[in-house]
């Protein structure tokens, strides 16, 4: 059970990292328009 918790947590963290890249890229578009 604990293995599953930590595997899911890791996947969430790396997924967050990917979403964070997307957010930074989107912010660039906004900053350039501003």
């Amino acid at each position, binding site marked *: 059970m*604990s*293995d599953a*918790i*930590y*595997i899911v*947590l*890791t996947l969430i*963290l*790396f997924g967050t*990292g*990917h979403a*964070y*890249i*997307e957010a*930074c*890229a989107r*912010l*660039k578009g906004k*900053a*350039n328009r*501003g």
Partner: protein
Amino acid sequence: MTLNGWAQIALFFALLLVLTRPIGLFMTAVFERRKTFLDPVLLPVERLLYRLTGVNPDEEMHWSLYLVAMLIFSAATLFLTYAIERLQGHLPWNPQHLAAVAPDLAWNTAISFTTNTNWQSYTPETTMSYLTQMLGLATHNFWSAAVGIALAVAFIRGIARREMKTLGNFWVDITRALLWVLAPPSLLFALALVSQGVVQNLKPYDSAKLVQQQSVTGTDGKVSTITTQTIAQGPVASQEAIKMLGTNGGGFFNANSSHPFENPSPLTNLLQMLAIFLIPAGLTVVLGEMTKSPRHGWAVFGAMSVLWFAGVTATYWAEAQPNPLLHGADQHVSATQSGGNMEGKEVRFGIANTALFATITTDASCGAVNGMHDSFSPIGGMMPLLNMMLGEVVFGGVGAGLYGMLIFVIMAVFIAGLMVGRTPEYLGKKIEAYDIQMSMLYLLIFPLLILGFTAIAVLSPKLGLSSLTNQGPHGLSEILYAYTSATANNGSAFMGLNANTHWFNTTLGLAMFCGRFLMLIPMLAVAGNLAAKKSVPATAGTFPVTTPMFATLLVGVILIVSLLTFFPVLSLGPILEHLLMHAGRSF
């Protein structure tokens, strides 16, 4: 402080100065894919690896794709290490028949080694099999260091390139960092360490009969007589070499580089300290060469050196002072004793080399220790903590130190621009809103993680305070040090804190992950944005980034940002402890 001690510190810096340029020029050639003396051996290996993995070495990557590749690589290697730890009881090279590592500890360790932190909530010689140490941990020392170098090179390309959308190829950069930069010196360094007495074998632990038997009272009150001692050993030298060169710091033994099998003599100690700074120092030359501004690289090197020198001076001074609580004891330097505070230090290294090692390892996000930082005087212990709080930019981790420093460079240029009322420029690139937004994000995540997690831990008697062995300001320093070390990806421990609990394993794991990945994402976003910009010619109003004035401003910005952020918590921890020590109280 003694002349002998200062002479050894000066020798270290002189050797570093001599080695920095050749190492830097070599790395520049490697990442610009120019000819090197290792090509006849390594080029065929590189080509074979690309053929096997299907990598097109000529394909360039946008900054976001570069980061996605890095995340995929890091996730894959993290899961591999986690699996090895959990399955080690069923895998070979486990002569001590060590059981599987518990899930929370295995996860913490896998994150730790993936992020180049090498925080260890465990005693390696009683927890990790030889296979885990070699395949799970030592390999990660190479991988995580190579990732750091690749990212630093990508950042430099961002500064150097004009009107381009790409920063290079992650797979090519990491392969060249592994094959050219890390593997050859690690092999040579491991052999040098073996020649000096560092252990390298796959034998089961030996047992030695004690000359003098010892009686020990257990926690249950039972008295037992100890007649033998277990001599832990294993493939130490091969792990030790990359532990230093890759600024990883995770020890094969719990005592790390104070263990005689890891660091047997003053000579190995000097070599290990040099190995920590070698690649980070060389990368400043890479910065200068690739941006066609060698003097800028040396200006950054100079700023780093000033901060290093200030750190080692303060630590050495603090540790050379007598302890005021030891009334009547002779604590002066003489032919038969080192004087000052020798608690937690190895006699074969003394105060100067322990203070120097502590400064280097916390400047460089290495985390190896040759003495116990918890046993330093309050101010002596504050200095390693402060070094980490500067953001690990004083040479810093391999790659991570340089890109962290370059974020501060952008801030320094921005502040200089504000002072003279013109758009800031950095090596021909205008620094605009997005660059500053991303740089601020980078700088704000760091204290948010450290202070946030520390606050939660010290407010919880059950989760945080129950792990402490010291109370008062020293206890606060222990928790603060742990989260600072984790977030800064340093990995050294202050000791005195039982971090092998569900709470600390999980939150320190989160701090290490966020301290690595959530900081480098905005960092590379800045690089991508810079690469796409046009070059503007320098004018009389351009702030030069090659002068001592620039280096001074850079040092000032780093100190002001870090001290304003962390002074309140330092005043509640080591500074208060220092004042109370002189009032006659200890913790």
